[in-house]
C-alpha cells in the first residue's frame, strides 16, 4: 500500500498541472469545445486526490491533518472541490485557472515535503481537533478563493480604468460578479474560521496546560478574524464597496498565510507541529 501512496503522491501534482494546463489553454483560446471537458479533468483529479487521502489515512492510521504539509494536501483538495462546486452552481467560467493553480501550489509543496508519519502525538488524536481542522480548512479554502476573486477584480478594474482590453477583459466575468464571488467566499470562510477558532479555544486549555492567550498564533488569528468581520459588516451595511472590500479580503488572506508560515516554521508557538 505504501508504494501506491508514494506513486499517488508523485502523480497528484502532475494531475493538477494537467488540469491547470487545460484551464489555461481554455482561458487563452476561449474555444467552446473545451468548455465542458475541462471540468472533467478537474473532477477526475479530485476523485484521485480523495482516493489518495483515504488510502493515506488507512495506511498511517490517522487523517493527514497532523502537520502543515499533510494539511496542505487537504487544503489543495478543499480548494479544488470548492471551486468545482462553485463552477457547477454558478456556471461562471474563465476563472478556474487562477484558483486551481493555487491548489496546484499547495499540492506541490505537500508532495515534496510530506513524510510518512505513523507515530502521532497523543495530543493530535482528538475528535475536537478533527472538527477544528475541518472548519479551519473550509475557512482557508473560502478566504483563498475570496482573495483570488479579489485579485481578479482588481486586475479587471485596472484594465478597464486604463483602457487595456486584453484577455482578462475578454474572458473574466464582470466586476459585479467578481465582487460578489469574492464576498460570498469570504463570508463562508469567515463563518468556518469562527467555528474553527472557537473550537480551538475550547480545546487548547485541555490539550496544552502551559498555553498562553498571548501566543502569536492566537493574536494573528484574532487580527485576521477581526479584519474579515469588520469588512463583512462594512460591506453589508453599504459603507464600503468594490475596491476597498476586495483589498481588505486580499490583505486578510496574506496575513493568514503569513501567520501560518511564521507560527509553523519560525516562531515557537503551540501551533508548530512540524
Amino acid at each position, binding site marked *: 500500500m505504501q508504494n501506491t501512496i508514494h506513486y499517488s503522491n508523485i502523480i497528484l501534482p502532475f494531475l493538477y498541472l494537467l488540469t491547470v494546463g487545460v484551464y489555461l489553454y481554455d482561458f487563452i483560446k476561449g474555444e467552446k469545445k473545451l468548455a465542458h471537458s475541462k471540468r472533467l479533468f478537474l473532477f477526475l483529479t479530485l476523485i484521485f486526490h480523495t482516493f489518495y487521502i483515504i488510502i493515506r489515512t488507512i495506511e498511517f492510521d490517522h487523517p493527514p491533518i497532523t502537520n502543515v504539509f499533510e494539511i496542505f494536501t487537504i487544503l489543495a483538495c478543499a480548494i479544488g472541490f470548492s471551486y468545482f462546486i462553485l463552477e457547477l452552481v454558478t456556471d461562471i467560467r474563465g476563472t478556474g485557472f487562477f484558483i486551481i493553480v493555487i491548489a496546484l501550489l499547495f499540492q506541490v509543496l505537500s508532495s515534496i515535503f510530506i513524510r510518512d508519519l505513523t507515530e502521532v502525538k497523543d495530543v493530535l488524536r482528538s475528535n475536537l481537533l478533527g472538527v477544528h481542522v475541518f472548519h479551519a480548512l473550509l475557512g482557508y479554502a473560502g478566504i483563498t478563493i475570496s482573495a483570488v476573486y479579489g485579485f481578479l477584480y482588481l486586475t479587471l478594474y485596472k484594465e478597464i480604468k486604463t*483602457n487595456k482590453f486584453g484577455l482578462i477583459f475578454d474572458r473574466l466575468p464582470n466586476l*459585479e460578479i467578481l465582487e*460578489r464571488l469574492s464576498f460570498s467566499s469570504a463570508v463562508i470562510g469567515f463563518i468556518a474560521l469562527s467555528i474553527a477558532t472557537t473550537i480551538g479555544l475550547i480545546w487548547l486549555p485541555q490539550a496544552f496546560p502551559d498555553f498562553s492567550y498571548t501566543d502569536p498564533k492566537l493574536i494573528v488569528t484574532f487580527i485576521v478574524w477581526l479584519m474579515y468581520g469588520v469588512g463583512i459588516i462594512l460591506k453589508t451595511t453599504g459603507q464600503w464597496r468594490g475596491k476597498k472590500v476586495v483589498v481588505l479580503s486580499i490583505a486578510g488572506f496574506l496575513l493568514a498565510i503569513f501567520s501560518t508560515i511564521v507560527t509553523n516554521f519560525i516562531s515557537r508557538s503551540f501551533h508548530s507541529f512540524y
Partner: protein
Amino acid sequence: MNFLAISINHHTAPVEVREALHLNQDEIKNYIDDLKNNLFTEGFILSTCNRTELYGIPAKPEINYIDLEKYLIDKKPSIEIKDEQFQKFFSCSALNHLFRVSAGIDSLLLGDNQILGQVKESFQIAEEKYFVGFLLKRVFDAAAIVGKRAKNETQISDGAITVSYAAVQLIEKIFSNLSKKTALVIGAGETGEIAAKHLRDKGIGRLVITNRTYEKAEKVAEAVNARILPFSHFKENLHDFDIIISATSSNEIILNKEDIKVMMKKRGYAATVLMDIAVPRDIDPAGRDIDNVFYHDIDSLNIIVEQNLKKRKEELPKVEKIIREELVNFFSWYNSLEIAPTIKSLRDYFEEIRADEVQKMINKFSGEDREKVDIVTKRIINKLLHQPTIELKKAAETGIETPESITKIGLIRNLFGIDAKKEN
C-alpha cells in the same frame, strides 16, 4: 450548374445608389412576378441597406447577367447605375458569393450576424411566391448551414465592432444585471438616441433622457420608452444613475471633476460608468481618477472596436474553410444528380432489398422452387422500376440542367434515401 447572380453592394456602389435600389417586401414581391415570367424559373431577391442581389436559375440558356442588369436599370431609370457597379456571378461563384454573404464576411460590418436572418427572409418571400424549386431549396439549406457553422464554429461574430455596441459591451463588463440599473442619456441627437436604444434593447431597468431642447428629448424618450429629466436639474440628480452616457453637441465640458466628486460622494462611491461619446468631449476626463468611476470616451471605445475587428479578421480563414467544405458538399450532391448513376443506385437499392428478403425465406422452399422464387421476385422489381426508369431517361433527353429533371432525380434520390445510404 446554371445558377446566376448579380449584386450591387457597399463594395461597388455609393450609398445613394444602394439606397435607391433598396427594395421593401412589397417591391420584392412585384419584382419576383416580373422575374418569374421573363428571366428565372426559380430565384430570390436579397435587399438590405448595403446590398441588392438577384439570384436565380435562368429560364432560357441565353439569359445572362446583361439581362438582369438591364432589368434592374430599367426598373430604376431615375438613378445612374454603371456596369462596373454590378458584381456578376455564375454557377460555383454565385454559390460562393451567397455563402460569403450568409456567413457575414461580405458585410460592411465583418461578421454581421443579422444578414443570415435577412437571407432567410428573402428566401421565405420567394417561397410564398412559389418561386423556389428543388434546387434552390437545396441552395438555401446549404447557405443556412454555412451561416450557422460560421457563427458556432468560429468567432467571426464575437465582440462589438461599432462604437455604440462597444459602449454596451464595456458596461456589461462592469455590471452583471442591467435590469437593476438606471441610466441617464445626456443629449437627444442621433448618437444619444442610438445609445438609448441599445440600453433599452439590453433591458436597462430605468432609462432617463435629458436634453437642452425639451421637445427633442420628448421625441427620443417616446421612441425608447424613457423618462425625461429637465436639463436645468440634471446635475442635482446625477447620483441616481449607475450609467451616464453623454452625447451632446456642446463645445464646453458639461460635467467637471467636481460634479463627479459630488455625485460619487452622494451615491456612496457605488460603481458608476461615465460614457462620453461626444466630440468634443462633454465630461472632464480627470473624473477617471476617482475610485469606482469608469470614464470612457470615444477613443477608448475605438480601441475595443479595432481589437474586435482584428480578431474577426483573424477568423476569416476558418470561415473560408467552412465555405469551401460546404461548396464541396453541395457540388458532390449536385453531381450525383446524373441520370445513369441514379438509375443504377435505384436498381441496386431495390435489388439489395429483394436479395435480402429472398435469402431470409429461401430455406422454406424446395431446391427446384428456389430458382423460381428468384426469377419471380426479380421480375416484380423490374416491373416496379420500369416506369421510373423511363421517366428518368426522358429527363436525360431534355438535359439534366432543367429544373424538371433536377426535381425528378432529386426526388427519387431523396424518397429512396439513396444519398443518405451513400453517406452511411
